[in-house]
């Protein structure tokens, strides 16, 4: 168990890739704060963590709201006394052409996806600084690199996350904290299902050089690597986990 005694906060941990990451880190012995807007689903993930033999705590959070994020940080320290790993996974994926887009859709995407990274990272940095170690891992997207028609705010927010990660890495490296991003390729989760038929989605998911349909669990290995001591000299990077669909 590579993460025994560690504490991890996973935003967006109630479903999809975030849930898989929460369970994956828990399987390696970490105690997990499952932070999500959907508290009922977060409780279910905590039950799953307990069944794996580790501890979990469900925390309701709106990552775009600073006081909500502060409550998350306080709840984490009250419950577990420290934090070693923050996974910024919470995000929205809203569809609109740029020329038809409401300002509200743009703002919400930027505030949740990018603002959430900023607020959550900041809330846990001082504690990581004191212990001279920490791991911040943000879930960006392949769309940050290649764009996506009708998803300009999502693409912009994910590209901005990569810029944020690079800048923050340079601010906190001296304190033993690494900051990296993972760029998942299109995966078999609920998120793309809001905008595609089942047939369209599965056809698209198979279209990559390895011909493999990416599942949420497929991102756990790279997260575990970045969270472990093995990656202590890797920071400010965006790691593509996409079956070779985009090589940059």
């Amino acid at each position, binding site marked *: 168990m590579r993460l025994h005694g560690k504490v991890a906060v996973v935003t967006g941990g109630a479903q999809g890739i975030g849930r898989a990451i929460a369970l994956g880190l828990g399987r390696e012995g970490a105690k997990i704060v499952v932070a999500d807007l959907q508290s009922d689903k977060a409780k279910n993930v905590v039950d799953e963590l307990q069944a794996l033999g580790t501890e979990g705590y469900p925390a309701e959070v709106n990552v775009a709201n600073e006081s909500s994020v502060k409550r998350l940080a306080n709840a984490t320290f009250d419950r577990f006394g420290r934090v070693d790993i923050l996974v910024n996974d919470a995000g929205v994926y809203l569809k609109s052409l740029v020329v038809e887009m409401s300002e509200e859709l743009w703002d919400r995407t930027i505030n949740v996806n990018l603002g959430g990274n900023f607020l959550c990272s900041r809330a846990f940095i001082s504690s990581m600084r004191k212990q001279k170690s920490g791991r911040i891992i943000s879930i960006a997207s392949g769309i940050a690199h290649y764009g996506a028609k009708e998803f300009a705010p999502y693409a912009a927010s994910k590209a901005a996350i990569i810029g944020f990660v690079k800048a923050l890495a*340079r601010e906190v490296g*001296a304190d033993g904290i690494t900051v990296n991003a993972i760029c998942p390729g299109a995966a078999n989760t609920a998120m793309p299902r809001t905008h595609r038929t089942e047939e369209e989605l599965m056809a698209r998911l198979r279209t990559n050089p*390895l011909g*493999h349909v990416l599942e949420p669990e497929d991102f756990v290995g790279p997260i575990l690597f970045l969270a472990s001591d*093995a990656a*202590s000299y890797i920071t400010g990077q965006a790691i*593509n*986990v996409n079956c*070779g669909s985009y090589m940059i």
Partner: protein
Amino acid sequence: MSRGGARHAEAKSGRILNTASNYGVTGSALRTPYSAAKAGIIAFTKTLAQELAPDGILVNTVAPGPTDTPRVMGKESPEARKQRWSQIPMGRTGQPEDLAEAFYFLTTPESNWITGQTFHVNGGLVTP
């Protein structure tokens, strides 16, 4: 070497790991052939990854930054070394072991869905 390995990959699996350098992305004055060769390795890795993906063979490259090896350390005064550290966000030069960890990860099932990529192990010095 890659071609020799690929011909033997009848089991529909395999890993090819190349070693590039951060100079392959940033360039480095007075190191034209080295930088060009390392940039070439990155493009070679991507191309080979596309060619071998149907056979389940993954091809990735590790790009080290400043690493404590005899070749680097032998040329560096203590002052130059301190100066170098001040430019590296993690505040130290890399150890060969840091690179070994990245190579090892790229041989495990945990990296099954990563191919054609460049892993920069440089303490945050270069963040392309």
